[in-house]
């Protein structure tokens, strides 16, 4: 009973938050921002081999568990320009992916797509090739951030900024590798030597058993001494 009440309450909360976000046009703010970023990245792309012709007018829809609205990406490629239009609602999509941001990160880490589908973390409806083509294009974009930044900041500040950025990245990367190595060492060698919680609990139990045995033995000895003394 309580479970069904909780479910109804959760449903009401979700409906209320959806209404608020719709009224404030938050999905439209999100799609406008995402569209702007994607199209800016496409405009800055230097890899001229990237082709959208095969997926022109195709729509990929992403339904993320964390978002109350879907994100649909439609490719519009003409002779003069290519752009992606992002919408929150389409009546038909060539490929729909139901997943979560957490799973998308796993995909980025090259975890097997099939494995994630088997684990019900990813559900693909429609043309899976389209999803792969979108992913391939995203990975093949080549953006010269240095030139782009230099246009706004100037050559010298850009060089210094990127030099500093590279140093930071290297330091962070080195620290990360060190942590990774330490964790590896721990897992391979030290973890086997470390006493586990269950082992400690078992040891405590054994200690208690011995203590009680010693107590009962002590009682028996005392009893024997008293018997001998009486005789």
């Amino acid at each position: 009973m309580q479970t069904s009440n909780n479910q109804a309450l959760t449903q009401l909360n979700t409906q209320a938050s959806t209404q608020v976000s719709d009224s404030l046009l938050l999905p439209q703010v999100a799609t406008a921002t995402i569209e702007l970023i994607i199209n800016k990245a496409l405009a800055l792309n230097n890899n001229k081999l990237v082709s959208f012709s095969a997926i022109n007018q195709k729509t990929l829809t992403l339904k993320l568990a964390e978002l109350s609205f879907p994100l649909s990406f439609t490719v519009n490629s003409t002779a003069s320009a290519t752009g992606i239009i992002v919408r929150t609602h389409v009546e038909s999509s060539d490929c729909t992916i139901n997943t979560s941001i957490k799973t998308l990160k796993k995909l980025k880490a090259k975890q097997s797509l099939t494995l994630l589908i088997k684990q019900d973390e990813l559900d693909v409806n429609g043309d899976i090739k389209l999803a792969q083509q979108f992913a391939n294009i995203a990975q093949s974009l080549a953006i010269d951030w240095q030139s782009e930044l230099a246009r706004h900041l100037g050559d010298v500040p850009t060089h210094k900024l990127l030099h500093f950025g590279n140093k930071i990245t290297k330091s962070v990367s080195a620290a990360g590798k060190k942590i990774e190595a330490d964790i590896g060492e721990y897992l391979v060698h030290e973890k086997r030597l470390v006493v586990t919680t269950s082992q400690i609990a078992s040891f405590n139990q054994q200690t208690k058993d011995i203590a009680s045995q010693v107590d009962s033995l002590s009682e028996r000895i005392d009893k024997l001494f008293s018997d001998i003394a009486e005789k």
Partner: protein
Amino acid sequence: MSSTDQNSQANDLSTSPQAPVDADTSVDNSAESKDTTHFGYKTIEKDDKISMVAGVFHSVAKQYDVMNDLMSFGIHRLWKRFTIDASGVRPGNKVLDLAGGTGDLTAKFSQLVGREGKVVLADINSSMLNVGRDKLRDKGLVQNIEYVQANAEYLPFEENTFDIVTIAFGLRNVTDKDKALRSIYSVLKPGGRLLVLEFSKPEHELLNKAYDFYSFNILPKMGELVAKDGESYQYLAESIRMHPDQETLKAMMENAGFEQTTFKNLTGGVVALHKGYKF
């Protein structure tokens, strides 16, 4: 913030405009008759409305986009994006962007219908149409867009032509809204849909008051400063108040034959998107 200078109406009283909310904005709604109509809060001869509204839009056409951004703080882009999302447009569709003005909706529709589809940007006002055409051509959008100067009451298209018709911030300037809705119904294909994006009545009284203050005290001054035309923006504020509210417009659409008619309030009802189907 419309795009057409179409004409207002002599509707029956089921389509009477909403009452203004405070004394400063009061108006005599009984002014609607067979021969007269509203131009903002003024009562004028019906025949004069087209030319008077035309005057407003010839005057503001060049500054239209800048003023839209300023007046709405850019939110009009989100309202239009919401309309595109709700349209369910697909590749290959034929879309009529009525009172399309400077072509914001047309630009997006053109990209979404692709080469197989077509978008007709229609507006009664030649100045607005010219600004829209120049803007879309500058964006490289040429392949699937047609431009038509047309009155919403007498659409020059065959019956059952379009999958989608949109009219964004234009209906309130149409003289005979019922006639326009019937004309739109006629050119839609069975299964097609009409989307009307238009200013409406705010849901909360406090918002209504703030909105009135903004519309009648700040908007005309902004118009004067930026577009050098305060009167046109005074008309804009007045015409919004004279436009039918959400329920009235929904009933008008149903009277014209539309089915499954719904509306969605945006930004607290400052704007509403009405949607109806032809079956």
